[in-house]
């Protein structure tokens, strides 16, 4: 599969359909959730306003519609598309349950791991196979046919939970997803794996549309529904395109932020049960690092340790670091054999 015309149409239309569907659905879902009291507190604003939660449902709608578009325009991608949307929806369901009922810190990664088994199960009847069990890394390819079946759900669980942990201020998750998916789109182009581009484009489309509502000052929060499903979508799109290592490097900022937090907390602890917040808000709305040694170490806390920063500045700092890791990801491409 090279640059077939169907693929190019599928990429453009999947981007457009995903963008439009998310753009239209987000304010309606936000309004619906607000009426039903599904709201979250915006801790970083003076007065701590309540913002509609679980807006990430609109991204699931966007990704579902764009998947249908891909199927219509590029029917030979049936197994890729089916596994992509079922994986994202399964992880999205975990997010919905977490947003509505609240899941334990250990249960959430476990459930996302189980949701990540969807493509492993679908690979059994799939023809041609969705994945062959090769991992493309710098300097060569590793054949791990059996181990890959275990690494795939682990990768999906890690990516979705990492994204979930890296949404500290308005717009960071959606903005970072735009940068990462744009990088993966370029990587699919440079590595002649353009067949993954419709899926990456659908992520880019829904992240772009959601960012409009989620950027500072946020009118809607993605909730775990949005963060978990977008993380899973990025991970699985990179599996389809055999861009796993590129995606790993592109997500280094989010991965290191998660590692900082996990190491400082001494393991998996649910966000709601952390008594000390990593940052506090000054009267003028600027964010400053907590001096309490019990507070978790996060990138936001380290950014604001030198001087108080506005919420916008913190978000831009995340975008700058994510862009840097994405540049490193693009530099890595020539090291990976085709």
């Amino acid at each position, binding site marked *: 599969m090279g640059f077939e015309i169907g693929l190019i149409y599928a990429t453009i239309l999947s981007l457009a359909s995903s963008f439009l569907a998310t753009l239209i659905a987000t304010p309606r879902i936000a309004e619906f959730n607000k009426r039903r009291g599904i709201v979250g507190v915006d801790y970083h604003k003076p007065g701590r306003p309540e913002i509609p939660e679980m807006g990430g449902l609109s991204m699931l709608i966007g990704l579902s519609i764009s998947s249908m578009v891909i199927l219509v325009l590029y029917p030979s991608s049936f197994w890729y598309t089916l596994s992509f949307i079922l994986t994202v929806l399964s992880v999205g369901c975990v997010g919905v349950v977490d947003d509505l009922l609240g899941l334990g810190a250990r249960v959430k990664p476990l459930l996302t791991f189980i949701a990540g088994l969807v493509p492993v199960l679908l690979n059994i009847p799939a023809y041609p196979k969705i994945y062959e069990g090769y991992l493309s*890394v*710098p*300097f*060569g390819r*590793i054949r791990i046919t*059996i*181990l890959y079946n275990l690494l795939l759900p682990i990768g999906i669980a890690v990516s979705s939970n990492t994204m979930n942990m890296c949404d500290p201020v308005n717009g960071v998750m959606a903005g970072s997803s735009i940068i990462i998916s744009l990088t993966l789109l370029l990587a699919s182009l440079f590595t002649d794996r353009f067949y993954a581009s419709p899926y990456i484009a659908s992520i880019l489309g829904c992240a772009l549309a959601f960012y409009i509502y989620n950027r500072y000052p946020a009118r809607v929060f993605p909730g775990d529904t949005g963060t978990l499903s977008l993380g899973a979508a990025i991970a699985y799109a990179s599996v389809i395109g055999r861009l796993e*290592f590129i995606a*790993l*490097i592109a997500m*280094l*900022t989010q991965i*290191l932020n998660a*590692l*900082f937090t996990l*190491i*400082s907390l*001494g393991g998996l602890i649910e966000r709601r049960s952390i008594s000390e917040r990593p940052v506090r808000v000054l009267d003028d709305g600027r964010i400053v*690092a907590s*001096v309490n*040694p019990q507070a978790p*170490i996060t*990138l936001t*806390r*380290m*950014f604001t*340790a*030198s001087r108080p920063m506005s919420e916008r*500045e913190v978000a*831009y*700092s995340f975008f*700058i*670091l994510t862009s*840097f*890791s994405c540049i*490193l990801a693009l530099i*890595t491409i020539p*090291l990976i054999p085709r």
Partner: protein
Amino acid sequence: MVRLGFFLNILFAWLLLIVLSYLTINVIASITIPDGYIFKLIEAIVKALSVAILLALWLYTWRRISKLYFEKLLKGRVSVSSF
């Protein structure tokens, strides 16, 4: 806006991953045990364990280096003693 130390932290993690990948391809992948089902299984386990050890080393080195320079970068404003 973003201090140099954060870029260096990511750069260092990236370099370590490249080294890890090089070692996996050129050292671990070349481990071979004579033919036979049980030997192939042992070979796969040895390879998986070697990669796991390398990943643990990656995490350990990154943690130590992070602690060293974040202590300097943050000058005690945020305690990184848990690293």
